[in-house]
């Protein structure tokens, strides 16, 4: 093994996640993968490498020791982050030299933070992906003492950042009609767009519960529709009238009626809405949804061009006198951060 990360301590819900396993719906295995796919795209842009797996950290990160010289990208929900006790910037790529300790605290906004490595993780591919899929019994939560082997990093920049728009505090979600939208009374479909929802504390990788302000939603006799395919973003209405937005690890089929489907470009916003955040819905046409998807893909493709050097203003640098302001004299044991 060339090196990697040793887990010194870790939050309760940290797993390896990538783009998931498409292609197994007919076998009952949902795609899974990262809750906030955009965070993977941002990490790939920062590390200047193809999109791959990251550590997905729900709510809290952990402490990780570098067993080799590494490059790391920190994306998704911002967390309090330090390297050897020195604060480092989120939405950025940093050097993590051998022996250095990365300390990732609780999220300061949003839900899921992501830690990616230059070269990715050298972990086996199972059915085409490295992702843990806990509801399917694939993979496991990270435990202290584990070592995550790093893949081969062909090298690239460090000390660079991305300006990232806020998707960590709820907001507007665009919907297209689902298989069963027509079963809901028109009054409810209209009311959906006028209702403010609060993200409930009940949320996980399978789905996120939203509590409507005012009346609930539902279909007469709606508990007996025939089981049909589920796609992530589907808004399932269960018995109490509150919607669940089904997410990465949802079931593959379901018999509860679904009010609509959140478009893929807005799913990161659902994933990252913290408990108590306000969310709203707006139906769009399929053409509008496809235009939004094209715009989202263009934005993801353009991320690399937006990576900018990380410049710290001298007034923000508490340890100015300890920094090497002239380079070229490092014996490799020390590092800038």
């Amino acid at each position: 093994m060339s090196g990697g990360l040793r887990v010194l301590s870790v939050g309760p819900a940290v797993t390896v996640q990538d783009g998931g396993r498409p292609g197994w719906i007919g076998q009952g295995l949902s795609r899974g993968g990262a809750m906030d796919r955009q965070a993977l795209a941002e990490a790939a842009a920062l590390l200047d490498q193809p999109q791959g797996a990251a550590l997905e950290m729900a709510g809290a990160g952990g402490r990780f020791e570098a067993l080799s010289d590494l490059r790391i990208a920190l994306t998704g929900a911002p967390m309090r982050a330090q390297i050897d006790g020195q604060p480092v910037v989120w939405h950025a790529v940093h050097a993590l030299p051998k022996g250095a300790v990365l300390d990732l605290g609780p999220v300061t906004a949003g839900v899921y933070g992501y830690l990616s490595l230059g070269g990715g993780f050298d972990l086996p591919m199972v059915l085409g992906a490295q992702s843990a899929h806990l509801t399917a019994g694939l993979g496991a939560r990270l435990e202290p003492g584990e070592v995550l082997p790093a893949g081969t990093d062909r090298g690239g920049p460090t000390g660079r950042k991305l300006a990232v728009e806020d998707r960590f505090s709820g907001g507007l979600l665009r919907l297209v009609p689902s298989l069963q939208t027509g079963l809901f009374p028109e009054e409810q479909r209209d009311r959906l767009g006028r209702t403010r929802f609060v993200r409930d504390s009940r949320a996980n990788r399978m789905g996120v519960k939203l509590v409507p302000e005012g009346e609930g939603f539902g279909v007469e006799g709606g508990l007996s529709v025939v089981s049909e395919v589920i796609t992530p973003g589907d808004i399932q209405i269960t018995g109490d009238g509150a919607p669940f937005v089904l997410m990465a690890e949802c079931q593959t089929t379901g018999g509860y009626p679904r009010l609509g489907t959140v478009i893929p470009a807005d799913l990161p916003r659902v994933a990252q809405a913290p408990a108590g955040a306000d969310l709203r819905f707006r139906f769009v046409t399929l053409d509008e949804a496809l235009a939004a998807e094209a715009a989202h893909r263009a934005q993801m493709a353009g991320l690399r061009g937006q990576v900018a050097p990380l410049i710290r203003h001298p007034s923000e640098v508490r340890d100015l006198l300890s920094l090497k302001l002239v380079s070229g004299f490092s014996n490799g044991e020390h590092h800038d951060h």
Partner: protein
Amino acid sequence: MTAETSPLLRTVGIDGLLVSFGDRLDEAANRAALAFRAALEAEDWEGVTELSSSLVSTYLRFDPLALSHAELEARLRPLMASRDWREAPLPQGRRLHRIPTAYGGQLGPQLAEAAGLADMTEAQAVEALSSARVRVTALGFAPGQPYLGELPPVWNIPRQQALTPKVPKGALVLAIRQFVIFSVTAPTGWRHVGQTAAPLFRMGHARPFLLAPGDEVEFPALSEAEFDRLATDPDGGVTSEVLS
């Protein structure tokens, strides 16, 4: 939609289309979904990235920015209209699996209850269930977990009101003329009539999923003592053959 009308085409999210052959589970709708999926596999259209069938529908996932909804629909409609899919034969290449099952006792604690609802003795129920041949109508809920049907009408017994908090992996449960074998430990409203050791999902195995939609299954009875001996058999005593 009634059985007589043409199949229904609907969108799923922004990247899926669903062709449905009924609005409730029946044998012809399930057969149509399986046959239509097999026909789409044979067509092998560029841009279609995933195909699956569920109880009464065939699902296509595609990249809508590479293959437009209109273009895909223009290809689908003639295929949908090309025949009465509810009259189509089942696809080739399906398999028959015999999954040994311990009925009743501690391994099937609700056999007596299910037998009672079907107006049978336990012995009659075991005789009936162990000689029935059912089809995998769909896989879902958990990886490799089958829905199997349809059992004779006498087994149209309702789901129970309260959930059984936990049935073990491999549990054979029954309701509304269908079996499910649980691929994970789970709560259920269906009645737990027997226990299998079927390896429904084996990570890293050459054939990770034992069953495929359209396969046929029988559940021959064996004693608890015989069942205990299956614990060391990685195949759980299951034998499989290709149906001709």
